[in-house]
Structure formats: C-alpha cells, structure tokens
C-alpha cells in the first residue's frame, strides 16, 4: 500500500462523496436562487437560513414507499435509474480539478487531482454522455405508461440531437488545443496576455463556448430545454412512475450531470484551476469558483427563460445549432491554419 | 501471456455466434443484431493484427467498418419498419413471395 495508491483511493472516494454533496448543495441553491429571482424567501425554517432543507428532502424521499407499476418490466424498471446515476458519476472520473500536488511533501511524486488520467479524456466524457441516454429511454419504456414512454422517447431524441453540436464544439476546442487530454488543455490556458487578460480559450472560441453551453443544457434536460420532464406538459415525463429512492437517483443523475458539464466547460474554456493570486497547489479553489459561477448561470437560466416546445427545440438543435457549430469548426480550422496557433 | 492467437480465436468464436444468430433466429431485428456481432468480431481481428504488425492501418480500417455498419444498420432498420407496416410481422418467413 504505497502512499500513492492510498492517495489515489482516497481521491476517488473524495470525488464520489463531493459529487453527492454537490447534488445536495444544488438542491438548496436552486430553491434559494429561484426564490430570490421570484422575490420571495425560499426555504428558511429548516436550520439557519434553510441550509438543512436538502437533508429534509433526502430523509423524506428515503421514507417514501417504493412503488412499481404492475405491468412494468421489473428488471428494466430497476436498471434505468442505476444506468442514469452510474453514467453521471463515471463522466466526472476523467475531469481534472486541480494541479499536481504532493500534499505538502507526503507523496514522493505529484498526484494529479483527477481520478483517471486518460489521454483521450474528452472523448471519454462524450462516450459516457452518450450512454446516459439509455437510462432515460429504459425508464420511459419500462414504466409501461404513455406519459413515460412519450417523455422518454422525446428526451432521448433531444439528447441525441444535441450530442452532435456538443461534439462539434469539443472538436473546435481540440483543433486549437492540439490534444485530447483535459489536463493538457487546461495547462495550455495558464498565464495571461498583456499581463491581465487570462489565456482562456473562451476568448479564442466565444461561439464555441455558447454552443457548448447550449448543447450541455439540452443534454442535461434542463430549462429551457426540459420539455420532456415538464410538469405541465407530460406529468413529469419519463420519471412519472418512479418514487422514493429511484426518483432521487434520477435527480441525483441530473444534478451530477450538470456539475460534470460545468466542470468540463471550466476545464475547456475558462482555464480550469489557473487563476491569479493563488499558488498552483490551491488552484482547486479557482476551479470551484468557476464551476459555481456556471452552475449559478444554469439555475438562473431555468427560472428566467420560458420553455421551448418540443418541435421548436428539435428545430433549433438541427437547423440552427448544428450549422453554427459546423461553421464555427470551419472558421476555427481556417484560423489555426492561417495564424499558426 | 496473451498472444495474437487468443484474440483471433475470440473473434472467430464471436463471428460464429453471429452467424448462428442469423441462421437460427426468426426475428428481423435479432438477425440485424447478429450481423452487428459479426462486424464487431471482424473489427477485433483488424485491431489485433494492427497491434501485432505495428501498423495504424488496423485502427483506421476499423473506423471505416464502424461507419459502414452504422449506415447499414440505419438502412436495414428503415427497411424493417417499412416491412412491418405492411404485414405487422417481424418474422422473415412471412415474406416468401420470391420462393418458387
């Protein structure tokens, strides 16, 4: 049990626990921010300023009865939330969130703050995102109810359609960064131009960032693209028939997916853990700040914009976002060729 | 010691399983799935040989095979949908018009 192995295992557990915590924090943040945007107070009774509200929610969900429709396919019904939650956590495994650190000299060599250091990290994120479609499709199908089936099929069709633009935005970043490894892309963004503008890829790829965020919001089924799970439309869509912990797992999967999309966006476009004033080993603080900013943006979007209707959503994905992503890729490639970046 | 022969034997077995699926199953979609198994076995052979001979061509051909498999699955499934609309059955024994 070398110190490195212990540190690696500890890191994996730490990431897992932190993702669970992040989902709980997101529940609270979403309700508070929604409340303030709507000029009301939100939860304030449970604990100081309502911070124990997520705990109350989790306890309530745990004590609810676990239901299953009689005509539902038992195996698939149980499998769907497992696939959704597993893929959500697995996608974060290749996301680096800090520089190499030796924990103050305890380790012989630096341990990168990344659960698995793969040199095709971006593609792995994309692959696991494609697999999370199955959780939703199987949930819709196995519930054996028309609302679930419609919601499931629509949601998965939406996710597949926006995966294309997602991939093309990633490809534009790859052309500039010349590497598939997320750590290399982050390290390329260290330093500043002119002394005060950070070398983020956001400034080289503004449209790419917008495409990525739009596709990311559509991938995680959040507003304004959350038609398939809208309460007014489809009685909560594919997770209509789920209750108690299975329902909690779908929500957990959704929040962890949000965190993953924000983390990957931070790594690709906002410079990851590089920032002024702090030493490199404390870079994870900057990472947290940037991810928190993007998550706030996510919540803000949800409670500000009206929802797209399904055919508007699909038309936007295929007829607007995909051509823009392709043109962005072409312009990026031309720029790299001309300016020799 | 895992050698090239191990991979070749594995892909031979997978290919035979796919062939058995095409012969035995009487459901159009399962037949298409068996064809996908066969294509995957071939992919495995290509990558194994590419690694053994130190050539990147193995992986490149695999990219092409995957693309062709995707196109073939799409068109095959479209045909299955069109056939199903006609006769409400996925059994290939229902379409015997060309038999003498």
């Amino acid at each position: 049990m070398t110190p490195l192995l212990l540190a690696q295992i500890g890191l994996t557990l730490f990431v897992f626990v932190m993702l669970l915590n992040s989902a709980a924090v997101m529940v609270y943040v979403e309700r508070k921010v929604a409340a303030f945007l709507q000029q009301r107070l939100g939860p304030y009774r449970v604990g100081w300023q309502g911070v124990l509200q997520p705990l109350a929610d989790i306890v309530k969900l745990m004590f609810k009865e676990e239901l299953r429709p009689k005509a539902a396919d038992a195996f698939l019904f149980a499998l769907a939330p497992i696939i959704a939650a597993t893929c959500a956590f697995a996608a974060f495994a290749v996301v680096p969130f800090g520089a190499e650190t030796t924990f103050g000299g305890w380790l012989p060599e630096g341990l990168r703050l990344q659960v698995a250091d793969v040199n095709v990290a971006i593609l792995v994120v994309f692959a696991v995102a494609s697999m999370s479609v199955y959780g939703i499709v199987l949930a819709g199908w196995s519930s054996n109810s028309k609302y679930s089936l419609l919601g499931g099929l629509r949601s998965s069709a939406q996710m597949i359609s926006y995966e294309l633009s997602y991939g093309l935005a990633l490809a534009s970043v790859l052309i500039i960064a010349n590497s598939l490894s997320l750590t290399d892309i982050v390290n390329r963004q260290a330093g500043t131009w002119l002394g005060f503008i950070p070398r983020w890829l956001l400034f080289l790829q503004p449209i790419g960032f917008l495409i990525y965020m739009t596709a990311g919001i559509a991938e995680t089924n959040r507003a304004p693209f959350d038609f398939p799970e809208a309460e007014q439309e489809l009685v909560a869509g594919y997770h209509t028939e789920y209750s108690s912990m299975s329902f909690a797992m779908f929500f957990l999967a959704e929040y962890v997916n949000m965190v993953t999309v924000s983390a990957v966006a931070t790594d690709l476009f906002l410079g990851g853990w590089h920032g002024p004033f702090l030493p490199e080993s404390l870079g994870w603080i900057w990472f947290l700040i940037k991810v928190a900013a993007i998550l706030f943006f996510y919540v803000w979007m949800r409670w500000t914009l009206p929802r797209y209707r399904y055919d508007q959503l699909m038309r936007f994905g295929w007829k607007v976002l995909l051509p823009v992503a392709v043109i962005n890729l072409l312009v990026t490639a031309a720029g790299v060729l001309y300016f020799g970046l | 010691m895992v050698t090239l022969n191990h991979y070749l034997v594995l892909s031979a077995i997978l290919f035979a399983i796919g062939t058995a699926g095409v012969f035995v199953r009487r459901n159009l979609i399962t037949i298409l799935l068996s064809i996908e198994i066969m294509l995957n076995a071939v992919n495995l052979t290509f990558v194994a040989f590419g690694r053994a001979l130190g050539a990147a061509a193995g992986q490149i051909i695999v990219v092409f095979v995957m693309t062709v498999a995707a196109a073939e699955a799409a068109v095959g499934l479209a045909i299955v949908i069109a056939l199903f609309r006609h006769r409400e059955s996925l059994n290939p024994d229902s379409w015997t018009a060309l038999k003498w």
Partner: protein
Amino acid sequence: MLFYVFAAVAIVASLLVIAQRNPIYSVLLLIASFGALSGLYVLLEAPFVAVIQIIVYAGAIMVLFLFVVMLLNAPHEETEYDERVHPLLRAGPMRFGAFLAAALAVELVWALTKGGESGAFPSGAISSVKTIGQLLFTDYAFAFEVTSVLILVAMVGAVVLARRETH
C-alpha cells in the same frame, strides 16, 4: 487476466443475445458485449478505437435499434414451430443452422491459429490518435470522403424508406 474477463463477458453476452426471446434484452446484452469489446481494444492499446466503439456502436447504433424495437413494439417472435421449445433446441433447419455455425467456428479457429509465429505482441511503437488522424487525412483521404457520402446516402435512404405513405 483482464483479457479472459472481457472475453468471457463478450462471448456470454453474445450467446445470450441470440438466445433471448425478448428483443429489448437482446439489445441490452449486445451493449454489454460492446462494452467488453471496448475493454479489449484498450488492452490492445487502441484507446481511440475503444472510445469510438462506445460512442458509435453502443451510444448511437444501439439507441437506433432500441428506438425501432420500442416503436414497433416488437412482439416475441411467432413461428410455426412449437412456442414452448427454445429456438436453439428446435429440430430441423434451425439445428442445422446452429451446427453450421459451430463448424464455421472450428474451421476459423483452425485456420487462424495455423499461422507460423506464436504471435506475441511486439512492444514496438503504439500508434497515437495523432498518427491515426494524419493517416486518415493523407493516405486514406479518399475512403474518408467516400464514407461521408455513404453516410449521407444512408441518411436519405433511411428517411425515405421509413416514411409513411401520404396520399
């Protein structure tokens, strides 16, 4: 050691694919088989192909299959054979087909292992994604462009074939 695990998963999953009656379970088992194959590609030091396998095969083609199975509400197969007997045990043409496949397996194994060297993998240079990309766009550029036309043709064909007749 990992090779045997992945190989066992791939073979068992493929056998179950052709043995299952319910088409949805067949599709899910095939996805498991593809996952095992992806692991094998990683063992063969082809991470790019491994990830592409998940993205294209398990993530796209199988979703297509799943959609079609769900939309057609694919029934369990009805044949003129006795329903209670499992397909792989039925008499007649089916057993002959299974026997032919087994004969194919034996022949292939014999032919493929007859090659001279024992075939241990050389520890030479492994190709990176960069090499693959460069080769794709220089030596195999024509095939690459033709593949894009092929995909376009397949897209148009699939849309036209599956369209409902509107009079």
